């Protein structure tokens, strides 16, 4: 993933607020990159633009050598479905579906039958230790289990890039650690790039690289060990 000179202005009534001031950022495969910064600094906006969910006011984003900022709405959706996996802070699971069916959504959206997609999703759920919960609905799962279902949903279609927005924010320390270990393992595959947006300093030591952001700008990088020390200081 490569963002070049990304600017984002939000219109609010007659006035305009610039939240990103020409951001350049490259995310490499085989690494877990952590994007950190205080609340409101523009992390989630940058994440939305880098995944084609939001359009930048200026600048370009390439993902796997495709300039996604020049794609049309439906093309962006198809690109996301094929190449990106998402993990949200609030899980965003469908309450009427079982864990396996929830994890199967990207495959179903791609045209697979729900039964076949759920069968494949059960394999992914097994990989992350959720096999016995595959037929449970979200209201029968704990927060950590729901987040692991969301991880399975992000992995089921074997995307090249996994983006996570505050994946541990709603979890206790132990559960958050387990979730980060899974993401760490995913990132160890050289074919995968993992980008995690977080302001939870407990997860710094899982990163290969930490990018800091403030006031809509990339302000620098921290090395993980130093960040981890800082977190425990």
């Amino acid at each position, binding site marked *: 993933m490569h963002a070049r000179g990304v600017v984002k202005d939000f219109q609010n009534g007659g006035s305009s607020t610039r939240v990103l001031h020409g951001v350049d950022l490259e995310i490499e495969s085989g690494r877990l990159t952590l994007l950190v910064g205080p609340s409101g600094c523009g992390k989630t906006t940058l994440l939305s633009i880098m995944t084609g969910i939001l359009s930048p006011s200026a600048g370009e984003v390439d993902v796997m050598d495709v300039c996604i900022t020049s794609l049309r709405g439906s093309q962006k959706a198809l690109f996301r479905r094929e190449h990106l996996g998402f993990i*949200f802070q609030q899980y965003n699971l469908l309450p009427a579906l079982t864990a396996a069916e929830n994890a199967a959504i990207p495959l179903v959206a791609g045209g697979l039958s729900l039964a076949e997609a759920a069968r494949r999703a059960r394999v992914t759920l097994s990989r992350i230790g959720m096999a016995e919960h595959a037929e449970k609905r979200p209201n029968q799962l704990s927060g950590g289990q729901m987040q692991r279902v969301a991880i399975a949903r992000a992995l089921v279609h074997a995307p090249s890039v996994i983006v996570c927005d505050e994946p541990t924010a709603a979890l206790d320390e132990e559960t958050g650690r387990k979730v980060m270990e899974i993401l760490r393992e995913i990132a160890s595959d050289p074919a995968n790039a993992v980008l995690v947006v977080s302001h939870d300093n407990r997860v710094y030591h899982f990163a290969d690289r930490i990018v800091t952001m403030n006031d809509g700008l990339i302000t620098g990088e921290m090395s993980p060990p130093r960040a981890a020390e800082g977190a425990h200081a």
Partner: protein
Amino acid sequence: MNLVALKMLLGDRAKYLGLVLGIGFATLLMSQQVSIFIGLMTRTASQIMDVREADVWVMHPRVKYLDELEAMPAIDLSRVRGVAGVAWAVPLYKGNAVIRSSEGLLQQVILMGLDDGSLVGRPPKILMGSLADLKRPNALMIDRAGHQFIWPGEPLRVGRIVEINDRRVEIVAIAKASPPFQTFPVVYTRYSEALRFTPPQRNKLSFVLVKAAEGVAPVDLAKRIQARTGLQALSWQEFAWRSVRHYVERTGIPVNFGITVTLGFIVGAAVAAQTFYIFVLENLRQFGALKAIGVTDFQILRMVILQALVVGVLGYALGIGLCSTFFWLTRDVPALDGFILRWQVIVGTAVAVAVIMLFSSLASIRKVFVLDPAVVFRG
């Protein structure tokens, strides 16, 4: 994604049932009220439609509909018979009379006097007794609803003696006649008897029923009779529609039924649209997640339309089922005789429900289309 859409819909049982019941109620209200209205309007012309042997009805020029009578002189029957293209022409008496049952009950009735020879104008089905007995002196035939009205709860029976304008007459037959708009019992006798039973009047010929000769179009014959005699002549279809139109234009019945049907449509549309809108609104975050994951707007459109289609079809089936059940349960109630659920009402209500669901799904889908999928990144 169809199965996912259905699971989303069925997953929220309370809203799903609310939607189905809302549509069902609207369907029931619209189909039942329209059926009653059509049944009522059909009653205004039922006695015309029962006389299938006659092609043309001839009447006084001032008559506007079936129940507004102004009799013609008896000579007019001969004048009509003299018009070229008339195969046959017979008299028909229609008027009100009062009968007194042997129990002393007084009851106003519609008295029909049929041609003595042919009995043209008789009801389509004889349930009990014989039509030939009507040719006996002081003989009367009554319709089933009238029998049930005068002698409620008693089995149908011929041979009863009643008085009509102080003349003793015998009920010799019971017929199944289409119910008239005025809910009085209908009794039939011969034309000559009807003239005897009713008080003396200068003119008593209510209608002349005419059969067109072979190859003569009834509408053309009606025009010819009108031109030659100065009387009003209409084909039975024209006369039936004129009677229906009179009630539609001159009474508050269509307005009242129209208001009920419109209210049914509006209430149904409001309940269904609002519930469906709230259902989609509450799932907005889920739709946002689906959009972020890569589900296209077109796929989401199909999901919402499928959900609308399912609740629409189920609600409609429930409503039409309840309406059918209502008319089936009341099929033997004399006051509701002739009120049925017609296929045209079934189709029309289906169209109305389709409009309601289209409106509901369009209102909701707009919200999904403009939804920024970045909503899923907000905590």
